[in-house]
């Protein structure tokens, strides 16, 4: 028997016969394909929740931005910094400056109860008090509806995500802060980051409403460059007047998202794995029936001289092609249904909602394809071996 070229043409021939016979076995072929499509869709769908959440968190910070909390606090909510401390932080080395002063915003972080539109029940929405420099510290900030709030007035602006997910946050609505109603005067975006889940106001005004005196919870600064971070951090941590925790914004947000991301990812893989096992059984079923329906045909080919190796490879190939078809359907389905879907969930560490969009990333789609291929390969392996091992004479006789 001649070399590889011959072998490949053998494989091509057997595979072609197999693929051509698929319309006859429409039922089991579509069952297997849709089974695999289901696995891929669920896997990609669930993981896109985690991916979207992570995206929202990582879009929230830039590498040249830093955040300072009280030492020991793992989130803004439980942190506390007095005015003197915030001044020290704003004047520290490494902080970018403009003519108006250092790019530092001492901020307040509280939560208020608002109804979530999708479930109708109350959720915790972040309410942040900021200083003037905040707009420059968070450079991706943009007002998209209405206007910025006036400093010193009891007014708020809301993030786009918050306006979408929680009721009563359109321009012109009023929300209850402390004892009074404050009007919503504008809607803003922040490059898709966590800030879009928040409601913002003037820190000074919020302090008054919450009886915070002159204390804050965090300071957001913009550094001269990403490399200035170390100098900035060292200066603050060695200062005896302060007891502070200094981190890059990107690290802070990544940290905040770990619990939720871990939960979703674990559950997502658990569910998808079980589904994949089920899909393997479905694929095995299909391929076994494919092979047995073509017993005589395969035996004839082998009697004519086609090698059993070629038979094995082509049966597996057929199975993989089928699986990839199913996987493609599943991938397209999950992209269409899930990508960009807006939702919100709770960030356990800050006890408040984060709004985000599901993200069907290229990596997820690749993962889906890989899973589909694996399912197809396993589903085709055993039937392939059986097809190649059948005694030719008996198979030829089979009715």
């Amino acid at each position, binding site marked *: 028997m001649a070399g590889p070229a011959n072998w490949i043409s053998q494989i091509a021939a057997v595979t072609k016969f197999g693929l051509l016979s698929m319309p006859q076995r429409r039922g089991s072929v*579509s069952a297997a394909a849709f089974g695999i499509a289901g696995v891929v869709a669920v896997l990609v769908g669930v993981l896109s929740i985690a991916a979207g959440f992570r995206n929202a968190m990582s879009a929230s910070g830039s590498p040249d931005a830093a955040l300072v909390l009280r030492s020991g606090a793992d989130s803004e909510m439980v942190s506390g910094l007095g005015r003197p401390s915030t001044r020290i932080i704003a004047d520290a080395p490494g902080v970018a400056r403009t003519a108006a002063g250092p790019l530092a915003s001492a901020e307040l972080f509280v939560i208020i109860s608002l109804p979530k539109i999708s479930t109708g029940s109350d959720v915790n929405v972040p309410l942040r008090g900021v200083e003037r420099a905040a707009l420059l510290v968070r450079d991706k900030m943009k007002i998209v509806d209405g206007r910025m709030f006036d400093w010193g007035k009891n007014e708020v602006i809301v993030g786009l995500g918050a306006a979408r997910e929680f009721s009563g946050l359109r321009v012109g609505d009023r929300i209850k*802060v402390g004892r009074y109603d404050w009007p919503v005067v504008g809607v803003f975006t922040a490059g898709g980051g966590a800030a879009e889940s928040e409601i913002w106001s003037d820190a000074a005004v919020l302090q008054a409403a919450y009886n915070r005196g002159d204390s804050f919870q965090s300071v957001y600064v913009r550094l001269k460059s990403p490399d200035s971070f170390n100098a900035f951090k060292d200066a603050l941590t060695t200062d005896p007047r302060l007891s502070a925790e200094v981190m890059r914004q990107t690290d802070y947000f990544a940290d905040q998202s770990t619990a939720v991301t871990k939960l979703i990812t674990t559950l997502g893989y*658990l*569910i998808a794995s*079980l589904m994949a096992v*089920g899909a393997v*059984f479905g694929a095995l079923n299909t391929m076994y029936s494919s092979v047995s329906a073509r017993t005589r045909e395969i035996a004839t080919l082998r009697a004519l001289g086609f090698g059993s190796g070629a038979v094995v490879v082509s049966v597996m190939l057929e199975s993989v092609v089928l699986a990839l078809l199913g996987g493609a359907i599943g991938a397209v389905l999950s992209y269409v249904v899930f990508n960009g879907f807006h939702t919100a969930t709770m960030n356990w560490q800050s006890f408040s*909602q984060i709004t985000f969009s599901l993200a069907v990333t290229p990596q997820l789609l690749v993962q889906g394809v890989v899973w589909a291929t694996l399912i197809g390969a396993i589903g085709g392996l055993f039937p392939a071996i059986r097809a190649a091992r059948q005694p030719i004479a008996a198979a030829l006789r089979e009715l």
Partner: protein
Amino acid sequence: MKFAYLIWSNLRRKKTRTVLTLLSIVVAFILFGFLSAIKQALTGGVVLEGANRLIVRHKVSIIQLLPQSYQQRMQRIAGVAAATHQTWFGGIYQDPKNFFMQTPVVPEEFLDMHPEFVVPADQRKAWLETRTGAIVGRKTAERFNWKIGDKVPIKSTIWSQKDGSFLWTFDVVGFYDGRDKNTDTTALFFRYDYFDEARRPGWGKGQVGWYTIRVTDPSRAAEVAKLVDAEFENSSAETKTEPEGAFVQSWANQIGDIALITASILGAVFFTILLVTGNTISQSVRERTGELGVLKAIGFTNAQVLGLVLAESCLLALLGGIVGLGLAWFLTSRGDPTGGLLPLFFFPVHDVLIGVGLSLVLGLVTGLFPALQAMRLRVAEALRRI
């Protein structure tokens, strides 16, 4: 029942195919079990007792504190049997990943309010006698291997002591178990008097996080809730009072519409299993056209042939379903697969029964179309097809 043998024999026909289909069904029901457990973990924290309890929190925000003086005023309201308070401590034990709730409480009041926490009498007494004492839920105690007499250091992220330190140490004086399967036994409870006295002045002293109220008449719970809120309207800290069930549910709702998500996933799973199983049954009926023709020739009626095919598909589905549900039960009883992120993890009996029902429905749906086809077979044609 005399047909049982016939039905059973037909399933033993292409063994590989039957086994594979059976396994897909088993897998689907294992998934069902896991999803039920997850749903239960995220939404099922309401205990029986919760029906006659209300939660009172600050109206504007859960993180704002309420005066401790409210307790007396609450207890004077008609319909209120008792009130007690708790405060979020926000502590970390060694590593933020080791998350569990800790709150200061007034021991006697608290245990009376929560009969689902079962504490042996001697441990209860020890707690009343030890100011720095704490009782720990069985689950957490086992997780960290704590024994009575251990000193547990917890770093609060919120509360510091008079000396400025955020580190608090408690003495483990007892453990509590849950009376119901649903009861969360992960929390640690310590004494409020120690907490209030030791916490830094000017930092929320004399203030508490939230109140739990027991009502005298559960059917009047909503009324009493309104009365409580009315009592504190226009004061410095307005309240929002709601039944404990609603309160717990709203926490779950903060995560998302869990019920919808699990239902959607299950829908996708069952749809694909339906396809696989339905296809198998259809195939096996098509292969047996001749045999079914013979049965009809012998004198089996249309209804009987229909019944045979349906019985086969139902038997297959039930078998797979029961095995799957059984395995799910076994696997979920091994505990939380996320390693501690979920407070409870078990497969509720009520959902097991739903699962059995679902498997029957699966059998009927997958078998119906092929069964109808079999029923409509023209005998002479069927015999010719052999």
